[in-house]
Structure formats: structure tokens, C-alpha cells
């Protein structure tokens, strides 16, 4: 079973994403901020990171930047999830090294399609 790490400081959003992802057959773990997420990522292998931007301690940009520089996890795809819809916000995510960008609240169909593509399916 593929593993997804949801990184978001809002419990509600984590709960929402967890339900989405689990319904798609993924194993889900959660982290409340970038620091916690890095720690988890160093202890376990994940197939995808779902990352919020605004978080305490370490924000989503920094987290993804760190991921890309850390040999063990650098190749793991990351999706950035944000409330902003402008081109420059998208570019900021790509600049940090995110492989895809979603606008909150993400919808079933979109996330289903793209997580499948990014992870090669849940199995």
C-alpha cells in the first residue's frame, strides 16, 4: 500500500485529506508542520507529500526545499496545497520544488487523478 504524508497545521484539513486519501486506498500519516514532517520523512518512506504552505515552525516551501536537498527523500513527489490561485503563487510552489499545485479546497476528482499519476496508483 502506498503511503502519503499529509503536512498541514489545520486538523480539519488534515482530516479531510485523510478521508480523501484513505478512500482512494492509500495509507495516510499526518504531520502538523514542516519540522515534524521532516522528522517523519527521515524515519519512513513515503510515496507522496501533500503539503500546506502556511504552517508554524517550518512552512511548506521550506519543507519541500529541504526534501529536494535530502538524498533519502529527494525524489519523492510533493503536491503543494494553497488557497491562492494566482500564477505567481503557483510559481512560488514550483520554485520550492513542488511537483504539482492544488487550490483549497481540493476536489475529489482532481486529487484522485493526480495522486494516481504521481504515485502510480495506490497499490
Amino acid at each position, binding site marked *: 500500500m502506498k503511503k502519503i504524508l499529509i503536512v498541514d*497545521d*489545520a*486538523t*480539519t*484539513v488534515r*482530516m*479531510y485529506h*485523510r*478521508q*480523501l486519501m*484513505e*478512500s*482512494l*486506498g492509500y495509507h495516510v*500519516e*499526518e504531520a502538523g508542520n514542516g519540522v*515534524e514532517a521532516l522528522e517523519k520523512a527521515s*524515519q*519512513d518512506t513515503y510515496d507522496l507529500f501533500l503539503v*500546506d504552505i*502556511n*504552517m*508554524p515552525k517550518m512552512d511548506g516551501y521550506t519543507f519541500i*526545499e529541504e*526534501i*529536494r*536537498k*535530502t538524498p533519502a527523500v*529527494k*525524489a*519523492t*513527489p*510533493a503536491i503543494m496545497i494553497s*488557497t491562492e490561485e494566482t500564477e505567481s503563487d503557483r*510559481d512560488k510552489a*514550483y*520554485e520550492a*520544488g*513542488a*511537483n*504539482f*499545485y*492544488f*487550490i*483549497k*479546497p481540493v*476536489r*475529489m*476528482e*482532481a486529487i*484522485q*487523478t*493526480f495522486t*494516481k*499519476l*504521481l*504515485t*502510480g*496508483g495506490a497499490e
Partner: protein
Amino acid sequence: MNPMLESFISESRDNLEEASQCFLSLEQSPNDPTVMQNLFRAMHTIKGSSGLFELGAFTHLMHVAEDVLDLARAGKIQLNSDHIDVLLSAMDQITDWIDELEATGELNTDADNKAQPHILALSEMIPVEHKEECDELSLATKSHQTTHRLGYSEIESSLGCLSDQQRFDIFQNADQLTFLRYTPQESCFFTGDDPLHTARLTPSCQHLRIVPVAKWPTIDSLDPYQCQLSFDVISSADEETLIDHYRYVEDDIKLCPLDMCWLAFPQGQWSDDQSLFSDVLPELKTHIDKESWHNIPNLIAPILELANPSVYQISCMRWIKAIAEKEVLEKPLIEALFTAIETGEFDYSLKSEVNSDSTESHQTDADTTTTDTGPQEEYLSNDVKTLLATQARMLEFSNSDDLEGRVDSVERIFNHALPEEFIPNNLLDVCQQAKQEQSANPLIILIRSLLDSTSPLETNSLESTENDAEETLDIATLVRQEQALRAHESEAAADESALDQTSLISPAPSPIDLQQPISDRDSTSELARTDLSSTQPVAKEPVHNQKPQVLKVDQHRIDILMDLVGELVVAKNSLPYLAKKAEDEFNVRALAKEIKSQYAIINRLAESMQSTMMQIRMVPVSTIFQRFPRLVRDLSRKLNKDVRLVLEGEESEADKNVVENLADPLIHLVRNSLDHGFETEEERVALGKPAQGSLYLRAIPKDDQVIIEVDDDGRGMDPAKLKQSAYRKGIISEQKLETITDQEALYLIFAPGFSTAEQVSDLSGRGVGMDVVNGLVQQAGGRVTIDSELGKGTTIRLYLPLTMAVSRVMMVEVQQQCFGISMENIVETVKVPHDRLLRIKQGEAIVLRDKVIPVLSLHSLLALPETQFEEEVPLLIMNLNGEDIALKIDLFHEGIDIVQKPLAGLMSQYNYYSGSALLGDGRVLLILNIKELLSCQ
């Protein structure tokens, strides 16, 4: 309630709390970047999460507030106290909404109206030159935002009421249409509105229909002065013009653009006689297939002239002709009409809803749905292209640090996302090359060439796929896709596909879902699933996670557990009795010994259970202290007194109930202090005091109590004034006026009906006086003391027990009856020779350490026969409201911990008992309320 909504509510409360604290500290230090950052994050989280629940007004208001903060964070607005007032009041509105959500699960319908003044006030804070920087969504299109939108489903029935001919006329007369529903308020006649007039003057009105809002009431209950009508208007004017026309009643209108295609559906009597038009059908089909629209009108016109217009098939044809003439060219629509001629079934309404925007999104539909069965044979799906284009963009940002990571992740995505035959043979080499050259270019070029070669229809692949990406992510499209999928599924007789199940989980995929709770759809499996997923975070948490885990539990359950533990503590006390019985009555010494040793173990367990239980219920007093910075700030601004609030010891803990009961008395004390205690700034300066007043709120843990101090350096209380005032109000007699000490005079403020305020202000002195404070504190098992020095300030101390659940009482005996007296008021116990009791007038007194203390007899208070003491008299010295009294009793027993239960039934009216408790041997102990007893004297 939906567990997600529950989580949202509790999380938002925390964030609101944090936000309001940040606002207050911002006022002190406006440029503190950490505070700003925390504030922004708290607000952002609330906004972001609220997006999950389709709370339009809520999200909108948060959005505007966030915009303002964003500008402030960037230094484009300097926040002053007035700004913070506005922001705080907006947050109050959000808090109200959270309460609403908690109570009802949804926002009231007036949410938009409530949000409006806040949004206006907030947007006024934004300087003109920054206006456009803020999101269009929240500010620029204010009028559009507040205008309610209609969905197709809402206007469908209205369209159905139009005759074929009417729709046909409208269709031919106009190129663009707007549907508007105007529902005047019932009381509109009294506000000078003339709804009919307004509706009839609608610009470019094509059709006006008047319908009653509800079923007409019977004639005797009909109120003709209330407007019961709603107006459905179809106009060919654009939305701007319409909104402008209805600007005075903007809240009462809803509108939506009316797709021309929505008008086109056939009506009429199905005719079995196909002979009239069966000749033209093949030719018509050819034209449709070839899309040679201009030939259609000439082909159909002769038939239309001959045939009966009320025939269903003719209606279809007429529409085909009209659509062909008009260049609205919706091929699926014409095809649907054509099918209708043959089969009598017009199957378009759903589709038109699905792709009301354009045929392009229809294509996206097809692609998204086919990704499940794998990408199409010849070309990569749009989704994959989107993904690849995104990767190219991402790679463009590479730098030497993270290049390898980026390239590796893209390589992995290639392998995941692309069907095998599409993975370029040279992928590995290109990735290697990129890493060696320290440049992502080779990989970017590879991606571009892949996109070009697989999208022969598109000229500029990168740009168009980027657009695609936006389209795929467009929420509206996705919702439609989902609806289409669902409709599709239900047609396919609801087979248990994974898709169907998953779409059930998504909490708010469409407006329909909101009205219908998710669990209603498939209650058993859905409930099980929700249950499962809500417990999973706990169950699946890996063992190595050292983070302290917090469990939120309903307080009610804790209370039950607490009661049970309390009863256990009492029940275990029966074991020593049992041991004694075994020894004395049954002469089984060994058993008695065993019971005793077992008792020791149970006792230890019960006690540690009790203390753990207490700790669970302990909360820091900061939970209520946090409210005060805001309160003091608002009040001092209102009263124009400069007061600094200092919180101390807020980490001290006490039982949750105690802390909660503390809130109201404290608010009252702080209000009093600000209103009456502090002088105005000028007065203070004249008195030589610092211009800024200081108010200290301290929590001091002491033994098994916590002392809360409200300490101000204001004008203090004047005992002489208090005495006079109390005398005037008949609270004390003339005799007492002379004898009362200054210290005692201070306690006069606790007397019911006492208020020193010359004028009742709107802050305090609303008839709820210090007596209520005193009552509340006593109810929580505490007491209040006052220290005040004229001109220097006042200190009011609340002594509160750490817990209310178990209280300590002293058992006393009077005439062979046992009673409990709360330890809180007991100062000491003494035994004095009976000749030391002095007789003064009717009463008795005793001189104890040079102090005269009146002696009362509990016997007489309880109407029991007096005991004649031969030698020593046991006395209980108590302190009530700062006054000492001695209580004569027969015997002291031990002090015990009890779980006090209020008296029930008939007994509950005797308020000189504060409650009852069960003793270890099964007896019931009545607890006396000495204060009440004294007042009955």
C-alpha cells in the same frame, strides 16, 4: 454532527483565541513580525478550513480580513487601535458564527447581511492604491458578491412554465439572457417599495411571471398588506444593468445568466404519424453530422408551415431550425432534439447542466473519466500533459542545490504517470546528463518534445496545457464532472464501483450534499466508515511517536467518572467497619486482618485514582485570564481611562468547574474596578499618581486553594461613605452605624441592594452587585476578602478551592446527631471552661486572645434542647464575611472528605442544609449551611 465540522469548530475556536491575543499584543507593539506571522497564520487556517464547508459569508469575511492583514504584514497599512477595533469586531462575528455552527450545523440565512458591514468597514481600511492588489474575489466585485446566484435547478421549474411559443419568441429576440428572481420582503409595502412597478420596468424585459411565494392562505388569514409574491424575470439586459435597476432591493434578488440552450426543449403532443416528416429525417441527419447548419432551415421550413405546431416532433424541428439559424450552434443540443423526433425522449437537460460553459469542458470530462481505464491509446491524456508541463515549469527553477532532487522526482513521476509505451527510451540518459551538466535543460527539452509529439492538435503545447491545468482545477468544472459521474453511475444501476464510494466520502462535493447529511445516503456503511476514519489517527499512530498526545473528551463523561471515583473513595471506607465486624461479631480475627490489608491496597488505589482524576480536570486559570486583556482594553477606551493590565500566575491550575465559575465574578470585579475604582487621567495626575493606572490580576496557588487577586491602584473605598450609604438604604441600623469597624464597613458592599455608584453607568451598577459575586464564589466553595486603602487602591481576593468535587467537612455532634460543617469557614476549634463564657445582654460571648467573639449555640439554631455543660464547652470558631463567631456544640469528630450531593425532593427547599453526603458506614450526613442558619436566627 459531521466529525470534520466538529474539528473545524474546536480548531477555529483555538485559532480565534490566538488571533485575538495577537491583535492585542499588536496594539502594544505594532511591528512585531512574530506576532504578525502568528496572527496571519491563525486567520489563514480558519479561512482555509472554512473553505471545506461552503460557508460563503464566513469564508468571504475571513478572506477580506486576511487581505487587510496581508497588507499590514507587508507594511502597507499601519494598524492603529481603530483598525484593530474593526478587526476584532469582525472576529466577534466569526465567533458568533462558530457558535451558530456548533448549535445548528449551518449558518443562519442572514449571514451575508451580517458580513456586509464588517466587510465594508474592513475594505475602508485598505488604501485606494492597494485595493486592486487584494483579491478580486473579496473586494473588487462587491456588488456581485452580495448578489445571490441562482442555479439551473432553481429556475428549471420556472422555465417549464413557459409555453413553447413564449420560449421560442424569447429565444429569437435575444442574444444573451439573464434570469432574475425578485422576492420582495413581506413588509416591502411599508418601506415604500412598489415591487410590481420595479419588476415591470426591468430593462429589456422579455418575460415576467408573478408567482406566490407560498401556497395562498385562506381568505380570512390572508394579510393583504404583506407581499406574498415573487417575480421571475427574463431579460436580455446584462447583469450590471439589472443589478443597477434593482439596486435598492439588491438583497431581495437572485440572478444567473440564462443559457440560450436552456430554453430549447420540445413540448407538445406526441404524434404517431411520422409520415409527414419521415422523408426529411435522413437528410437532416446528414446535415447535422456534416454540421452544414445553413441548409437546415430551408429543409425544415416547408414542414413547419404545413404541420400542426402542437405536435411534439414539430416542436423539436422548430427548435432545430431556430438553433441552426441562430449561431448558438450547440451540436449536442441539436442531436438531442433530433433523437427526440425519433424516440420522443429529449435527453439534454442534464448534459446542458454539465457543460453549460463550453464544449471544451466536455472534453475535459471525457478525459478525466477515461483516465481510470488508463490513458488513451494514441495520445497522452490531458491530465498527464498537464502534469508534464508542470514538471517542466518546476525544473526551470532548479538550482545547483536541489537539481538532483528535482530531476529524480520527475524521473519517478515519468515512471508512475506515463503508460509504458510512452516512457522515452532515453529518459535515464537524459536524467544522467542533466545531473552531470548541472542543468535541467535536457530534461525540459525532453518533456517539451514529448508534449509536442503527443498533441498534434495544439500549437503551443506548454501554454495550452497550462490552461488545461487551470481548467481541470477549476472547482466548478470538477463539481460538474462529479455530478456527471454520479448521474452516470445511477444510470448504470448503481454498481459498487470504487468511484461511487469515494464520492460519498467527499464532504461537500455539491450543494445537494450540504442539505442532505452524508450519513443519510448510506447510513450503515457510511457511519462505519466515518467512525473508522475518526478512530484511525489514534490506532495507526506509530509507537515511536514521542509527541505528547492530547485527547479531547466530553466533559460530561469526566464528570460521571469523577462522581464514580468519589463514590468509590467513600465506599472503600466501609471496609474498616467490615473488618471490625468480622473481628467483634464473628470472631474471625484472621479474616479481619486480611480485610484490613486489602483495604490498605484499595485505599491507595482509590486515592491515587482520585488525585489523577483531579489532575485531569485541572485547567490553568489562564483560560479565563485570557479574556481580560480584551475586556480591559475595550473598557478603558470607552471610559477614556488609561489602564494597564498585568496578568500574573496565570499558569496556576484549578478544577475546570472552579475556573469556569470564576469567570463571571472576575469580569464583574474588573468592570467595577475600571468603572469606579480608577480615577480619570487628569485626577490621577492631580493626585500625583502615575497617569496610567495599573490593574493586577494574580493567581496564587496556596495549599489546596488558589487565590485570585484583583488589585488596582485606584481611589480605594471610603468606609465612611460606605457606612452612610448602607444606613441610608436601610441595610444597617443606626446603632450598627456607630459600632461598625472600617474593615467591616468594606464588607457592606456584599449586602444585597447595595451600590455606591451615584450614577448607573452602562458598564456596571446594573443591579447585579457584589452580592452576586459573593454568592457565585461561595457557590464554588470559596470566599471573598477585601482590602482597601483610601486613595491607594483596592485588593479583592477570591479564595477558591482547587476542586469542587470533593470537599472537606468537619463532623460535629449535637444532641447525638451528627452534622457536617464545611471546613472553609472554620478558623479553629477550642474547648473553654464553661465559666469563661460571658453573658452580655441576651447573648453570650467569649474573650479569645483579647478579642470579643459572640457565642451562638448550634442547639438553639437547630431548635434542639440545650446541653448543660459541666466542665468544658467545645467551641467552633468560624469566620463569616470577615466576622468571627463561636459556635457551641456537643462533640467534635474528625474532618472527612465527602462528595457533596444537593438535597432532592422536599428537602431541597431547606436551604440551611447545603447538601448531604454518604458516609463510609452507609449513614447519611447532612451538611449545614451556617450562613443561612444565622440569617434564620
